[in-house]
């Protein structure tokens, strides 16, 4: 199992009526890899991530997440993953500690374990003073760090992050990526979508989606070399220009 890929997609497709949101994408993500899933708005990133996390049924192709079939083993998939959605995923009328304990609890963490973990987490985030503050009173960057930490609290093999750093300042983003690296170093596979091309450079490998298809796949260095561009940003603009959908 250790060498088996964390995620396998083979021709994964999702149609909504006559519109093909995700058009036969195929890729593999190795265990412990930080995989950047890039694409313009409307390229189909969120649809793909929703299929891989068991929120949306695919209409074609195959996929395995942590060795589980996304069609027939949805609940097993869910037990193996953490997920931080684009939309805000914490309860803003609960405190930091209550949110941590709630999400940890529904993943089946035992009481003593939960208590210890939430204590450690609050300490690591340096939020002892805010532990009993409502989420709504905290700045966005802090909330996103908490949301990420909550998503990996139950020690999933894979964590899916859907635009985790949207709307926060560069310093907080950098800190957020430190958290991601920390988890990756522990062997957690990170599947992350982002708009920020500088973040793409932090990934082990990236894919770029245009109009539901994957147009480029490889390490940032390979991709830049292969397309003869200086940055992932230039490559993105080059590829996305061919796209019909979205506003990039």
């Amino acid at each position, binding site marked *: 199992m250790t060498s088996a890929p964390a995620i396998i997609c083979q021709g994964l497709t999702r149609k909504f009526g006559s519109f093909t949101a995700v058009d036969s994408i195929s890729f593999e993500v190795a265990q412990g890899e930080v995989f950047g899933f890039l694409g313009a708005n409307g390229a189909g990133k969120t649809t793909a991530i929703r299929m891989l*996390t068991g929120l949306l049924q695919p209409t074609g192709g195959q996929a395995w997440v942590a060795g589980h079939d996304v069609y027939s083993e949805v609940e097993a998939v*869910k037990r193996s*993953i953490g997920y931080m*959605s684009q939309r805000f*995923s*914490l309860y803003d009328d609960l405190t930091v500690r209550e949110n941590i304990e709630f999400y940890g609890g*529904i993943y089946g963490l035992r009481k003593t374990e939960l208590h210890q973990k939430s204590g450690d987490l609050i300490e690591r985030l340096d939020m002892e003073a805010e532990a009993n503050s409502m989420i709504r009173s905290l700045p966005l960057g802090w909330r996103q760090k908490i949301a990420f930490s909550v998503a990996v609290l139950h020690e999933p093999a894979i964590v899916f992050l859907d635009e985790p750093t949207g709307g926060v300042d560069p310093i907080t983003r950098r800190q957020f990526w430190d958290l991601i690296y920390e988890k990756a170093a522990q062997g957690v596979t990170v599947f992350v979508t982002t708009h920020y091309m500088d973040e793409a450079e932090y990934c082990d490998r990236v894919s770029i989606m245009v109009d539901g298809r994957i147009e480029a796949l490889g390490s940032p260095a390979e991709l830049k070399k292969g397309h003869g561009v200086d940055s992932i940003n230039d490559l993105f603009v080059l590829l996305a220009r061919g796209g019909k959908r979205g506003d990039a």
Partner: protein
Amino acid sequence: MRIIAIILRKEFRQIFRNRAMLPILFVLPVIQLLVLSYAATFEVRETPLVVIDQDRSETSRALIARLDASLYFQIGEQTTSMEEAERALLFGEVDMVMTIPSGLERDLGAGQPVIVQVVLDAEDGATAGIVQSYATQIINQVNADISLGPPGIRIAPSHWYNPNLEYTTFMVPGILVLLVTIIGTFLSAMNVVREKEIGTIEQLNVTPIKRYQFVVAKLLPFWIIGMAELGVGLVIAKIVFSVPMVGSLWLVFALAGLYLLVMLGLGLWISTLTDTQQQAMFVAWFLMVIFILLSGLFTPIDSMPRWAQIVTEFNPIAHFIEIMRRILLKGAGFQDVTRQTAALAIQAVLMLTLAVRQYQKRTG
């Protein structure tokens, strides 16, 4: 079980932390019960009227005195002008104009029949009918007093289950049902939709929470609150309105528990069909207004058209109001409400099945 307990704890925290929600849960229902029970009355009392007395005799004055002395009428300014009386009727200052013809006393003395004209504001036909029957009663009494003829058939009325004809005795059990209903349906509908609106439902759906765990944990708080509210309502009904409670209160609570399952199921179902709290509110209102108007709370189901009576069979509110009135006022036991109980049980199973099936963790 542990998962359910964890979600429950979160739900209760959120409910009791919401400062806008607490008054809605506990203060508004009490106010509604107090205000509605007193105000939503069909009793007709102190109807203002004008008497045009063209006879001005002892008999006519006796008739007027009788009217004035009754609780049902209140005589305003006297006038002799029909035009003035008509204007008062038009502007709603009075609801009835009674014209006593001249020669009343003389003709009665001579054994001749006399016609007293009563003009009613029949904008609201039901009320006009009641006013007319009160006027007739009083005139009959006056008749009996002065009549020397043979006695006719008399009625000896006996009002069972509500001997003093207290309107609140009839209304309060029904209004209690509404309170429990509103808590059950609206709050459960709003609650799940709210998770959709803020996006946390997505987060819950990627966790291994099972559907039944989610549904139980979402509905149980409102079931408990609904039952507590019923308890408070019954205390108020007893203390403030002296509503008789003849039957078993255990039975009332047991059937209320069943009834709440129907309404919570309905609320959850609404929340699965809608995406925003506004939509959920609108759908819930639409259904509530129909259910309440056809529930027999204000108007007897027996006098509804046939089709409406059939529709009422599917109306949980109607069944539960009937159950409450029967148990509380008539002392009915379980065997007397089996039909309504069976209807509620079927509806609970249907509603919850529908809601749970509709609530999908994954969209297809």
